[in-house]
């Protein structure tokens, strides 16, 4: 299980990487001379962000898939008597 601090660290890292990339292209269309290279920079940033999104997406979707598969009621390790977990349901 990922701890909270690790999660926060990952999120901060992503935010910094995103902002660094964004800052480099933020003035994209300020001057005509930079227009073409700015377009390339913007698309490069787009692809970079999409790579980040797909990597995180793969981790989250992979975890979801594992959870759905492993902790489904019909999984061999989950058969037997149903005993509600301690704590008594959703409402505490």
């Amino acid at each position, binding site marked *: 299980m990922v701890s909270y601090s690790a999660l926060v660290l990952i999120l901060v890292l992503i935010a910094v990487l995103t902002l660094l990339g964004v800052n480099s292209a933020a003035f994209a269309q300020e001057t005509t001379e930079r227009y073409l290279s700015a377009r390339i920079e913007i698309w490069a940033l787009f692809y970079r962000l999409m790579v980040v999104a797909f990597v995180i997406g793969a981790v989250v979707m992979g975890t979801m898939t594992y*959870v759905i598969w492993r902790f489904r009621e019909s999984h061999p390790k989950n058969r037997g008597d149903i005993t509600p*977990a301690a704590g008594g349901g959703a409402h505490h």
Partner: protein
Amino acid sequence: MVLEVRKPRPLWEILFSTHHTDIGLLYIIFSLTLFFLGGALAISIRTELFLPGAQVFEDANTFNRVFTVHGTTMLFLWVIPFAAGIGNYLIPIMVRYKDMAWPKLNAVAFWMIPVGAALVWLGFADTTWNAYPPYSILRAPGPAAEMWIFGLKILGISSILGAINFVVTILKMKHPDLPMMKLPLFTWSILSTSLIILMSMPTFAAALIMLYTDRLGVSGFFNPAMGGDPLAYQHLFWFTFHPEVYVFVIPAIGMIYEIIPKFSRKPIFSYTSGITAFILLTIVSFASWAHHMFATGMSFTEKTVFMIGTLAAVPASAMHIFNWIATMWGGRIRFKAPIAFVVGGIITFFLAGAGGVVNSAMPLDFLTHDSYWVVGHMHLFLMGIITFAFVGFIYYLFPLITGRMYNERAAMIQFWLMFIGVFLVFVTQHLLGLYGMPRRVVDYVPVEPLIIMNQISTVGAYMLLVGMGIFLFNLIKSAGWGKPANMEDPFGIREKYYDYRRREPHH
């Protein structure tokens, strides 16, 4: 049973009731009806775009009217009233009070909605659901635009009245022995939503009056010819409607928190982080409205502020997703329709959120602005997590409302049709946007990639149509002739269900 289908009451008794379950039921039935009507308009739009050239609509103006009413219907007559309906049904039960704080006001708030809906549908305006000036004040045909303005005005007042009622019911009418930190997260979600409505909606109410007086020609708030500024309207509009995005999604998140622990047979992983995330979302919802306006020539500083404000929603949303996954982890999940829809909704929530991060990065926003990417992104949220959570929750509440069980197999077929359909329609629309297809167009350039992607999108829309047909059939047939539910534990999960014995005297 609350609805007592097997011992039906006269219709007038439900229509004129002020009891929270009756009002809740009216909200739910009304919003579902409008959902199907708005869906029919969506199908006509997708049919039109199946091929380039005219297919369904003779002229662009009719097309504009159709997508305007489609958008207005889905946002204001499906999502908001449905959440209010579920809130009406459950909040008094959850806070252990006999009814909403002001039952008559509650009934008034509901009955304003059909009036607003009638104005929107009879007018059939073409302003788009944003009604941006100068078109909406100078050229949009009347009286349709006026009817739209008054319809939205009435719907806004209804939302405010409903929100006041929820806030007072939760904060002042809850049982004295029930501390806030023991309330279900769904109650917190409705509280957050209501606070957002109360803070944001008056701004749009003022903007609508200004829009109307501009149309009359007696003012020029947004009319450049009279010294006004159309962008001022965009600020007022998005100050209300970016927070409104959270008004749409937060109740859905609350419903997911009701379903996941029950079907995973585990307590919520972190109740406190759920509340924290709701509070964070409520706050940051007001810090990001101008990210809809990056292309309007804002200064770099403004754009940076709103970009960071938008990204601030990511940690709070991630907390919810983490919480749901951690709750399911180690559980014994019984995959009935409610949790199937919820899991599908979480997956689309993540995808839509990832697309949103791209939108919020200001240079990238120029790539996607006013393109079909935006249509795909918005719909992935609305048809993805929000509608999936709502449909899942209808199935979850079905035994409480009707005393009967829905058809599980039909519900699962519907789930798969909708899950695949949503991906086909809306992920494809993201790509259409990257290929340069603008939004809100009746026709497009007849080039192969656009034609193929539009056709994929339309096929997905027809899958959604079939899914919705099954949904409607399932609801009607099961409500009338479904198997009587075991009301103590209708899903056989050995978890506490809502108190079906709750019978309060009708007012």
